[in-house]
């Protein structure tokens, strides 16, 4: 800490203590809600307040989790879905940035393509699912494409607007030194809009999950999305809820990971 002893005040200690108390209170409340929720779920299932066949119960989900952890099926399905999501996220994001670059590079291209982007952006991408599957066959390819296509246009538009917002006077400075358009991009436009680019990462991770899970609903014979559909079909709702819990857990971790990555990158840049 950079606080030197000469700028402390007796009340500052007090203030710090209150701050800590407040933080602790918030933590406790969060934990209480977490435990309370699962407890209520368990109890109401045990006492038949809710139909245990449909809503299962935490203990049953936990048992299933334990069993699948041991026989390796948890890891098997998880691995596939994580792979598809990451691939969809990376492809979608990179393609989006490339598209944004093309939009920025050629005003004419951006003017020509504009109405198509608007329409495609407004289109609910999951509706393309069946077409993608017919075109690419039922497999990883289709599912990853779903995960990518759902975030590519949005990220292109957001990143492009970031490119556009870079102060033109920075470009003037470079142009007065005789820079090329590519140099303008590399030296000014890209570093100037990195915060915007990075902020699309977080959004895209969430979107890729949607695309991949829907893709798995439609075609897969493995993966967490498949387990949900399968559980639904055989009326095994413990399996459905188990998959849901795993997905929630993974999505949260991935989101946090990207958030950390964002912080790290921004810190490194500044």
């Amino acid at each position, binding site marked *: 800490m950079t606080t030197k002893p000469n700028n402390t005040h007796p009340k500052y200690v007090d203030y710090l203590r209150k701050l800590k108390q407040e933080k602790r209170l918030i933590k406790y409340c969060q934990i209480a809600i977490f435990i309370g929720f699962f407890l209520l779920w368990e109890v109401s299932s045990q006492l038949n307040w809710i139909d245990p066949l449909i809503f299962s119960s935490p203990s049953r989900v936990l048992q299933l989790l334990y069993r699948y952890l041991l026989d390796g099926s948890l890891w098997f399905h998880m691995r596939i879905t994580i792979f598809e999501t990451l691939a969809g996220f990376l492809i979608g994001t990179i393609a989006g940035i490339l598209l944004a670059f093309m939009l920025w590079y050629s005003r004419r291209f951006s003017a020509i393509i504009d109405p198509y982007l608007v329409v495609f952006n407004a289109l609910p991408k999951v509706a393309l699912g069946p077409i993608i599957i017919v075109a690419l066959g039922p497999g990883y390819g289709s599912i990853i494409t779903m995960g990518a296509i759902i975030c590519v246009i949005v990220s292109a538009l957001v990143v492009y607007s970031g490119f556009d917002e870079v102060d033109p006077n920075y470009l003037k400075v470079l142009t007065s030194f005789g820079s090329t358009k590519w140099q303008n991009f590399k*030296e000014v436009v890209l570093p100037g809009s990195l915060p915007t680019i990075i902020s699309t990462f977080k959004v895209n991770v969430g979107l890729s999950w949607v695309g991949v899970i829907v893709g798995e609903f439609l075609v897969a014979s493995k993966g967490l999305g498949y387990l949900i559909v399968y559980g639904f079909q055989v009326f095994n709702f413990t399996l459905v809820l188990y998959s849901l819990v795993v997905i929630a857990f993974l999505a949260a971790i991935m989101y946090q990971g990207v958030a950390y990555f964002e912080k790290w990158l921004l810190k490194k840049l500044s």
Partner: protein
Amino acid sequence: MSYLKLKDISHYYFNEKHCTHALDHISLSIEEGSFTSLLGPSGCGKTTLLSIIAQLLQPTEGDLLLAGQPLIEQKNLIGYMLQQDYLFPWKTIIDNVCIGPKIRGELNEANLNKAKSLLAKVGLDHVASKYPEQLSGGMRQRAALARTLMTDPTILLLDEPFSALDFQTKLDLEVFMIEMLTTYQKTSILVTHDIGEAIAMSDHIYLMKTNPGAIHLHIKVPDQVRKLSPIEARKHPLYHELFDQIWKEMHTLDNQTK
């Protein structure tokens, strides 16, 4: 002997709804090593004129000659400093200063040493590896000057480089600038709103009028004032005389356009 010559420059901005007449038949000739100021109300086309000289903008009509040759055929002789410093916030000071050579693919040991010695000249060698945001406004503007001087321009264009600074810093920087420009024998063109700054720094002042932008008056600053430093010049009686003259002139211009 005129060094930079503008012949009948006119400029129009085109867009779908308007055709804005920004400059009307501007002819100027500027001597080598002299300091010229363009003084005029907002919107009279000062920035447009500088952009044309810097070749960021192609004039609709007219020619630019440098030492008798068309300017277009002579690359990289012009340095441009903008109203704010526009140092790249993601680059250190030394990297900012080296951007010109980098763009031209001439980033080598010699240029790096040159950048260091320029930074020392502008009194910033101790902050070379800091980022612009860690510097004060005056320091940033000096870094921007070093960046502009890095590529050895023969002509320096200054678009209100002091307007974002407080008065004290501005005076210091004026003095500093004049010293640097005299040492490096630069031909300079300064755009400003500030009558005092124009008189204190220049050899020649061009008063511009607006709608469309044109040269209204050419004023030669008397030798007695010219020789003095910007601070000393402000104390000279002739400075005040000239100030009044220009002020009245601008006032009548203002009333004419209303």
